[in-house]
């Protein structure tokens, strides 16, 4: 049997190391091609995961198991279920797009830039596939480093402040998680997640562990009020960094909720669900208002991300298949849509070197192709049916109404706010008369940019028109997860 999961982790990492060899300026063209080859290979090895995936079972698939640190019973233990498999594929696809997106945009330290993304891609796949607590923790923390470098080296003027804020926020958040992992090992004498799922735990212990995990994952998602690192990180990060940050890194936080918190701490999860739901709804509404008044396009999209991720945590803690599947669909869709929107801002930034909404206006006059894509992605961000953005929002709202009509009421506010902040930005940036010499001189998309956005547009539309295949993959695993949540461990 071919170890596809190991390949999806190590192919990009090795490719990244290979690219690092070509670090001289004169080797930059070669570095790009090697990086692209690595990213393509990294993506191709994840395709069998989808093709050969058995949607009829919630058991782990493509399992690989080898001893790592026998003294502490730590295993190199990989496997995916219907939830994590989708994110491995999404991540590998996004890495490919990011390498392609940075093609001629990045001119300084090309090899290091490409290598950082490739290595991060492997580490992220590792975090999604790890079924051992220590292995997960190593991948989870290690992927901070490339992201820290990407923001700190290729970022904007306040990159150091943003990078340190990002690093400290997420590192501090995850320290308590390490304590929780060690505690669970002491209780079960195992680091295997499935052993933890079975371990009985009293409610006070569950709540203490809940707090520890919750800090780690809520910072990553990010949930209100630990979200303020994200807008700064996005604003300063280069386009590629923003794409991966929004499309993938945030998803790991949300993934932690369903891989650790819900199944290991079911009683605490049910006990504290009101608390998480409240925070999620604050994220949806409060952050929606904040997004409305942003003057910086990237900041606006960053806030929009937080608001959209509020739907994910809301969906998880409604504990119904429809809600959890909606939340997962929202995660995947947000991967496409936020990536596309950050790429769109990147396209403009590369030409005008400004992210300020006020500097633009009437872009459609000079960049009609770009405008068509931008409007499509804006509509997806506003959750228009027929785009991927609709699927998750709709399912979560339906499930929320069923749980309690007022929850649905609060969640549905996003229909208005999401449309307001997104389309108001579109109105000011895309439409109107040409705003100045800068906009008048804009050149429309080049071929690379066109196909990049077209790929994401195809994904956004395909998922919006026919989301069934995706939901079919996750359904059995979600049902199984909810069975774990429903079973008391007291």
């Amino acid at each position, binding site marked *: 049997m071919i170890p596809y999961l190991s390949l999806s982790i190590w192919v990009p990492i090795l490719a990244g190391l290979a690219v690092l060899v070509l670090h001289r300026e004169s080797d930059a063209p070669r570095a790009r091609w090697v990086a692209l080859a690595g990213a393509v290979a990294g993506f191709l090895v994840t395709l069998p995961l989808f093709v050969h995936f058995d949607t009829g079972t919630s058991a782990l698939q493509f399992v690989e198991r080898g001893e790592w640190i026998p003294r502490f019973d730590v295993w190199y233990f990989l496997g995916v279920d219907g939830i994590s498999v989708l994110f491995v594929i999404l991540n590998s696809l996004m890495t490919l797009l990011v390498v392609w997106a940075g093609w001629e945009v990045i001119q300084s330290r090309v090899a290091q830039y490409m290598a950082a993304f490739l290595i991060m891609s492997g580490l992220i796949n590792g975090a999604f596939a790890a079924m051992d607590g220590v292995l997960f923790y190593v991948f989870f923390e290690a992927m901070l480093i490339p992201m820290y470098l990407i923001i700190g080296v290729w970022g904007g003027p306040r990159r150091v402040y943003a990078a340190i804020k990002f690093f400290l926020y997420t590192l501090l958040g995850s320290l308590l998680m390490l304590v929780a992992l060690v505690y669970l090992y002491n209780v079960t004498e195992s680091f295997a997640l499935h052993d933890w799922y079975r371990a009985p735990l009293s409610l006070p212990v569950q709540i203490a562990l809940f707090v520890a995990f919750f800090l780690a994952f809520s910072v990553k998602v990010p949930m209100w009020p630990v979200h303020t690192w994200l807008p700064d990180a996005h604003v300063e990060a280069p386009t590629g960094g923003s794409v991966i940050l929004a499309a993938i890194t945030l998803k790991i936080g949300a993934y932690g909720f369903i891989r650790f918190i819900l199944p290991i701490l079911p009683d605490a999860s049910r006990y504290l669900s009101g608390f998480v739901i409240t925070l999620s709804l604050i994220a949806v509404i409060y952050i929606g208002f904040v997004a409305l*008044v942003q003057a910086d396009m990237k900041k606006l999209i960053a806030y929009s991300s937080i608001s959209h991720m509020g739907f994910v945590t809301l969906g998880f803690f409604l504990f119904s298949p429809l809600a959890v599947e909606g939340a997962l669909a929202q995660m995947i869709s947000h991967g496409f849509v936020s990536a596309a929107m950050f790429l769109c801002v990147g396209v403009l930034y590369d030409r005008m070197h400004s992210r300020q909404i006020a500097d633009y206006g009437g872009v459609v006059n000079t960049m009609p192709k770009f405008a068509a894509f931008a409007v499509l992605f804006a509509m997806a961000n506003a959750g228009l049916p027929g785009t991927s953005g609709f699927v998750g929002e709709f399912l979560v709202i339906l499930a929320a109404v069923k749980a309690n*009509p007022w929850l649905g009421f609060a969640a549905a506010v996003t229909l208005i706010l999401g449309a307001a902040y997104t389309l108001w930005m579109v109105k000011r940036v895309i439409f109107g008369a040409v705003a100045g010499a800068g906009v008048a001189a804009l050149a429309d998309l080049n071929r690379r940019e066109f196909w990049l956005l077209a790929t994401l547009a195809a994904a956004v539309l395909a998922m919006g028109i026919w989301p069934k295949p995706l939901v079919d993959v996750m359904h059995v695993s979600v049902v199984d997860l909810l069975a774990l949540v429903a079973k008391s461990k007291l």
Partner: protein
Amino acid sequence: MDIKTLALVVALAPLVASVVVGLWGPRLGRAASHWLCILGVAVSFLASIVAWRDVQAGNVFNGDVYTWLASGDLSFSIGFLIDPLTVTMMLVVSFVSLMVHVYTIGYMADDPGYTRFFSYISLFTFSMLMLVMSNNFLQLFFGWEAVGLVSYLLIGFWYERPTANYASLKAFLANRVGDFGFVLGIGLVLAYAGSLDYATVFAKAPQLAGTTIAIWGDAAWSLMTVTCICLFVGAMGKSAQVPLHVWLPDSMEGPTPISALIHAATMVTAGIFMVARMSPLFELSQTALSVVTVIGATTALSMAFLGIVQNDIKRVVAYSTLSQLGYMTVALGVSAYSAAIFHLMTHAFFKALLFLAAGSVIIAMHHEQDLRRMGGLRRFMPVTWATAVVGSLALAGIPPFAGFFSKDAIIEAVHLSTVPGHGYAYVAVMAGVFITAFYSFRMLFLAFHGKPRWAEPAHDGDGHGHDDTHHGVDADHPPKESPWVVTVPLVLLAIPSVYAGWAYIEPMLFGGHFGASIVVLPQHDVLAALGREWHGVTDFLLHGVTSAPFWLALAGIAAAWYCYLANPALPERLRKLAGPVYTLLDNKYYADRFNDWFFAGGSRLVGRILSDTGDRDVIDGFFVNGTAKVVGLASALVRHLQSGYVYHYAFTMIVGVFALLTWWVGY
């Protein structure tokens, strides 16, 4: 060809045309693009006729095309329900759309966005057809939002105009407020009926009639009332009912063909169609029906008043559309669903006609839309004039034109109704008849009759919508009749505006045309009561000309004639006399200003407070950077301990050792 394939052809033909023209329009060229789109819509229209014949033969189709998403027992599908209500809508939509497609060739001839426009209106036709042909709430919502999207794109079609961009954003957001309610309604349907399929939900509805839910405190609310009011909020957004009406007048910033197609004949009637489709639910809640009646009546009357004071030819027609949508809503509220759909149909014909006639005038006037600069156009544009007269007579409800039958049926239905609020509604729709006749003939007289005011030297002023290169008409360059692509659709729309009333009233209202697609409880069935007095079209006509609405309409026309032809100085005097009332109407009841101040301004204020105070000052300023400062301070203090001097360390060690020794010895 089976009916499912047929339905697919109806829906997909315009979509294919739209996608091809949208992607490759500039390469295909103008002629190929418009013929392709016209072909797509024509195929839809012809296939709709075939479907109609099939339904007439008694076949009702209800089936899924594909499963959109499935989660355990829940399954959401894309599928079609082809029943009498659906085919009626399919015919109206595809016919008006076809007329508008042809008309566009003439109207948009000089526009650089020509192929883009065709792609949009074909996309609209597809979306609207999907909406009406749906067999479930999900696809209904798909179509609902898709027509909203195309409306947004088309209102903002001339994207260089700030007013157009403002109007398109406003339209989308006002509709989103409606969708907010609509989604909650759909959520309640799914939560309690366990499905989004019409058939399943409607079959289950009677069992849920007695279900109550706790919405606020201990008060038990009827589930049906809450659900139907939520759904109706959606209809209020789409069909522009007070107070969500504000977007429709501004939507006139879009090109005239779409004002006719989207903002008069089809999309804005989606809310009416939806409520009629949901009749099995609405029938179960007297309260919801009452709300519908009162909102509709308020819209019908208050918007008619605004039609009087408008000077922009398109805005007169727009306010008239709002008012007529109010009539349809009132009909829904009094359970006369068939009458609402009947008025929807006749209105689609004569209102599309009036808009397209207005467009023809606008072309002839070189994009001048101010009625005060028109006048006397009858001699120069005989076809446009004649068709506009037909449209105005139909709108005013003069027999035997189509509007007379549908409007009279609504008024009679309101008269017979017992739903709470019907008394108010009756007064409103009766008063509305006079005002409708007045403003429609005011427009007709100002545009086509009297002195040609465009021949006078232009006085600079407050006119709307003239483009940058103002090359208006004058005495040396009189307006010309529009080309055939414009006048032929006018004539083709004038024909049903004349005959659709007497030809269809009997089957649609009293002949059971809608069959099982509309459900009315016996105690609400005002149309059945009306049907018992039905003795044929002639009798209805004779009864009509002897009853109040007809004389009110005639009075309205006479008043318009007196004010605008016989005594043109009078309106100015009346305006001064009515000072504050005129100001109120001229400011459209201050609804726009209130929304700008309260909702738009308020949201931005809240956003700024949360962003500056909440995020920047409290979370970042106090907690995040505060923590960093505390850590910084603490480490500054602790740093003193690591001085690097051996004697400091030695001293500390000695102190420590003494302390430990004391502790051991002492205890």
